[in-house]
């Protein structure tokens, strides 16, 4: 009988269908295509949950699935790789599928309120975009090889471009869309080289080996890399270690681009030009997560290269801090959220880099929930404020839109990492992992981790601060504008998703309360178990994507080991307390500064730092300069060169020959005596050359 796994492709196919339907039939539907999207995503959610249950072993025996379903390009000659599309389902996939389809569904519903009720035009295009995005994102999630992942990685990029630029009549969105695609494309350039490199090196891009009846029929590239490392092979003149690092870094380029990590983070704040539901779905919960997910997906490969791990950790830690500081001074609701998103993904990278696989996935999950919530909340506020996003024009919305307020608050607490909200547990685990591995790991790697940890820790404070600065400015105090005094009410289709997510943000942390688990000895760290899998056999043995395997690699190859300077429990508590207290400190500072009827700008207190922060550390400036100050002049120069020199030569030749011709014709003077003279002359010449000199005489 057909199990859930046979329907996995349908998870992506349904939204794809919705895309087609709403694109071509959207304008004939009452909701302009939203129906198709909602039905499709609901279907995807159901199927995803079914898949998850199957993976959990509740419905069906097989708990993992990895098959090639479609041969995209068959390489017939030997040495010609064959490129396939396939499906890989393991706990990680199942979890991500559920998250994506859930958020997608909620965002579709929310869009009814945000787009339809606001009387937007071009909705079929909008819903088609959402549909296509959901489809590609889900397909990316269950890709079983690197190339397929890349292909859908690019597709989600396209959808992000289309949706950011949805309001194409204005000048901002198209430009932001261009920037978003271009910056991510720059990252994807390296990613693509990485993909090509992986296929050229290992002949396959499989994340996990394909097995039939227990025997491996197609090896996965992390496995092959592992073996190559053991056998001390060398590729393209490099030692396996170096080459793996190179490939890892190349793929990382795509990750940094998509997950908006430093230095390719600049596109995300601009991307807020897009409709808010889009920001919630694409630029907070799912697409931006694709990068992190990719690292997690091929974690077995990255664990082979300590260098890559260190880089990941540092990028993550730095981005977390760096983005958080920028979030502190932003005026607009969505801008704050954008920078917090960047910062939060920094945490996930930090976790992955420092061997906190579970922590990363955990934070990915919780963040998806509470950040989507915050964006949707922001969306509802924006509806109420007639699309004015400036927090200084708001205030006192608490009493006028309670549902939004309370849900938003729950999200904020989660983001700030206040116990017991979701964010606390995940962020705490991230930092904890970084800490213990920092102490435990050998050599520079450990110090790197500690540096990254320090930055991450510091970021906690800022997170708390900007989050509640946002909350107080938006909802507390007195209304500062007429609109804020009489905001537009929002409908069920807004409140519904908010409530769902609000509850989620408060509770989802419960799936992995590792501290409690360790303290009480109760085995309630479900996510950990979920990703750990059985010790022997089961899906980890088949897919080699289980935590056990990763921990072995961490220990054997990367040399990452935990160490508890204060003993296990104490360290745990201390780190939890430290991060919590920092978060609270941030919240309190924000409260003292902004929780008053008429809050005022305090940014001047920052002095010189203010301008720096306002200009986002001049990141955009130098990137724009690279594009327009360097590349464009270079192109102009090339054009000049082409017109002047390369083409000049061509035209030169023709004009020279024509000039020669105009001289040659002068020989024909028209006077017959001259002709006679020239004839005689040439006769003499020939005689001299060919008879006298020719040795005739």
């Amino acid at each position, binding site marked *: 009988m057909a199990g859930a796994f046979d329907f996995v492709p349908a998870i992506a196919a349904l939204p794809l269908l919705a895309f087609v339907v709403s694109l071509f039939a959207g304008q004939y539907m009452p909701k302009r295509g939203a129906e198709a999207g909602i039905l499709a995503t609901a279907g995807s959610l159901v199927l995803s949950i079914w898949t998850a249950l199957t993976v959990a072993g509740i419905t069906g025996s097989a708990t993992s699935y990895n098959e090639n379903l479609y041969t995209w390009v068959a390489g017939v000659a030997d040495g010609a790789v064959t490129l396939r599309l396939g499906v890989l389902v393991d706990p990680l996939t199942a979890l991500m599928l559920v998250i994506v389809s859930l958020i997608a569904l909620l965002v579709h519903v929310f869009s009814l309120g945000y787009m339809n009720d606001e009387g937007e035009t071009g909705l079929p295009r909008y819903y088609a975009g959402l549909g296509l995005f959901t489809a590609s994102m889900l397909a990316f999630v269950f890709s079983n090889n690197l190339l397929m992942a890349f292909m859908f990685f690019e597709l989600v990029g396209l959808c992000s471009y289309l949706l950011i630029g949805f309001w194409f009549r204005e000048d901002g969105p198209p430009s932001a869309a261009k920037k978003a695609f271009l910056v991510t494309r720059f990252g994807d350039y390296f990613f693509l080289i990485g993909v090509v490199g992986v296929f050229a090196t290992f002949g396959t891009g499989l994340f996990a080996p394909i097995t039939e009846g227990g025997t491996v029929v197609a090896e996965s590239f992390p496995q092959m890399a592992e073996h190559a490392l053991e056998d001390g092979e060398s590729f393209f003149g490099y030692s396996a270690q170096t080459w793996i690092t190179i490939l890892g870094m190349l793929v990382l380029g795509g990750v940094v681009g998509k997950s908006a990590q430093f230095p390719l983070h600049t596109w995300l704040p601009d991307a807020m030009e897009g409709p808010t539901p889009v920001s919630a779905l694409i630029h907070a919960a799912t697409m931006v997560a694709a990068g992190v997910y990719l690292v997690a997906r091929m974690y077995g490969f990255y664990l082979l290269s300590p260098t890559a791990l260190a880089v990941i950790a540092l990028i993550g830690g730095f981005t977390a801090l760096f983005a958080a500081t920028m979030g502190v001074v932003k005026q607009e609701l969505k801008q704050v959220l954008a920078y917090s998103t960047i910062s939060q993904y920094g945490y996930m990278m930090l976790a992955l880099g420092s061997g906190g696989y579970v922590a990363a996935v955990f934070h990915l999950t919780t963040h998806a929930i509470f950040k989507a919530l915050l964006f949707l909340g922001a969306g509802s506020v924006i509806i109420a404020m007639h699309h004015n996003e400036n927090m200084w024009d708001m205030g006192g919305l608490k009493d006028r839109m309670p549902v939004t307020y309370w849900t938003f608050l729950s999200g904020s607490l989660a983001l700030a990492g206040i116990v017991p909200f979701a964010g606390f547990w995940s962020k705490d685990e991230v930092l904890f992992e970084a800490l213990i591995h920092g102490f435990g790991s050998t050599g520079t790697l450990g110090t790197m981790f500690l540096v990254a940890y320090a930055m991450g820790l510091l970021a906690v404070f800022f997170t708390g601060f900007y989050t509640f600065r946002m909350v107080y400015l938006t909802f507390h105090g007195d209304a500062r504008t007429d609109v804020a005094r009489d905001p537009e009410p929002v409908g069920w289709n807004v409140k519904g998703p908010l409530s769902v997510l609000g509850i989620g943000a408060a509770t989802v942390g419960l799936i992995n309360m590792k501290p409690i688990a360790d303290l009480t000895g109760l085995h309630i760290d479900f996510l950990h178990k979920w990703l750990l899998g059985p010790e022997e056999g089961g899906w980890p043995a088949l897919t080699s994507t289980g935590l056990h395997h990763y921990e072995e690699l961490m220990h054997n190859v990367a040399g990452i080991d935990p160490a508890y300077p204060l003993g296990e429990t104490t360290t745990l508590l201390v780190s939890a307390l430290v991060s919590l207290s920092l978060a609270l400190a941030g919240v309190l500072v924000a409260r003292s500064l902004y929780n008053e009827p008429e809050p005022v700008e305090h940014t001047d207190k920052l002095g010189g730092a203010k301008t720096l922060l306002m200009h986002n550390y001049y990141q955009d400036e130098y990137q724009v300069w690279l594009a327009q100050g360097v590349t464009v002049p270079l192109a102009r120069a090339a054009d000049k060169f082409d017109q002047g020199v390369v083409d000049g030569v061509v035209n030169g030749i023709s004009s020279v020959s024509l000039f020669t*011709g105009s001289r040659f*014709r002068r020989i024909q003077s028209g006077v017959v005596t001259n002709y006679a003279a020239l004839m005689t002359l040439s006769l003499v010449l020939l005689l001299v050359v060919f008879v006298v000199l020719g040795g005739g005489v």
Partner: protein
Amino acid sequence: MVVDIAGFQVADWVALVPSLILGVTAMLLFIVDSIEPRPGTSSNTVLAGLSTLGALGAFLVAGYFLVLGVGQPRGTGAVDLFNGQLVVDGMSLFFVVIVGSVTALVTLASYDYLEGQEYQAEYYGLVIMAATGMSLMASANSLATIFVSLELSSLPSYALVAFLKKNRGSVEGGLKYLLVGALSSSVLVYGISLVYAASGSLQLNAVADALAGGSSVPVGILGVGIIMVLLGFAFKTASVPFHFWAPEAYEGAPAPVSAFLSSASKAAGFVVAFRVFLTAFPEVGGLAGGDPMVDWVTAVTVLAVVTMTVGNFAAATQEKVKRMLAYSSVGHAGYALIGLAALNAPDQGFVLGASMMHLLVYGFMNTGAFLFIALTEHWGIGRTFQDFNGLSTQAPLACAAMTVFLFSLAGLPIGGGFISKLYLLAATAQAGSWLLGAALIVNSALSLFYYSRVVKAMWIEDPSADLEVDSYPSSLYAAVVIAAFVTFALLPAFGLLSPSAFDAASVLFG
């Protein structure tokens, strides 16, 4: 002497029938004219018809002989007449075909062109006379016969160029042609006399034998003689440095005459050059191996390069279409000279054959081009490129034909010129004479430029307001269209004549 032609045992002079036909036609023309009561009033139709028939007859018979294998190894073998003073072989027949066909086209076209002109009988008579001379040049196998037949073709040509007595251009052209011709013929004769001095004989094979045996007089004299003979032929083929007459003569002469001279006369000049240098002077030129006594091969190479370059570069910057064609015909003389220049190739017959085929195709495409000019002169539209602007709107058929001629001259695959020119290029590659190859490439590119100037004027430019084509002269049109058709047909049907060309060529190399 008796030869076997198509199974009939006939006297060997029968092989000369093509030339005889032309000669007889010339006589007939004079008779027809003289039996007319008032001289110079004979009916155009009779004269044109008669001469066209004569030329056609010569063309057909020569072609038929070619097919039968007369004078060729597979047939009778070369037919020697009058103790080898004349010889009928593949090469001579091949060139009679060229001369005959060109003459036929020209006389056909002249019917309309000469409308209302006086002295038409003389015109046709002179044309056929000259044609007879050219056909004899193809068979001439002794310096004596060569000189006589060459003059027989030249003298009428002088008169023909100056035929329009009241037209300054025509007269001036005639004068220059005459003076340059006289000078060249004296150079030629002097050269012949020196060759005779060195060899003691005028019959080509005898000359070759004598020279092979080594001569009593210093080789320098022979060298001077050879160079002078070469230049004498350069005049006939309108090659540098004896080409100076060509632009003016072609421009001034009545267009059909220009066509006649630039195609048939040039071809005749080449056949003589080929025969003399390859029959009489191969050893001297070092073709039989060993280093040459007189390196005429290199001399010809230089002449070829200079000729094609001067011709094409000068043509590129002309304002008058007819003069452009005149210069381009000088350029093509340079191409054809490759047949005598690229001879240090393993397969010499290949080289010479390519050159012969080029002359054949050239006969049609160049004649056609000049006849188109005749058409425009008939219409009385101007001579410059601008005057041709938008002509296609008035006379699409003629313009299409002209386009075929021009592109074929430029070596594009719309006519036989494509294959023949590429074969010349191939010949240079085979001989490894990169100088010739490079010159050919450069010049042919340049020629494409200026030929397409005419095409551009006719098809792309907009017509000027007063462009008006009133009449569509049937015989001119017929001639142009036939020429165009043959030019085009020679692309797919190149093989009809090329085997005889290559065979005839390789025969000369024994």
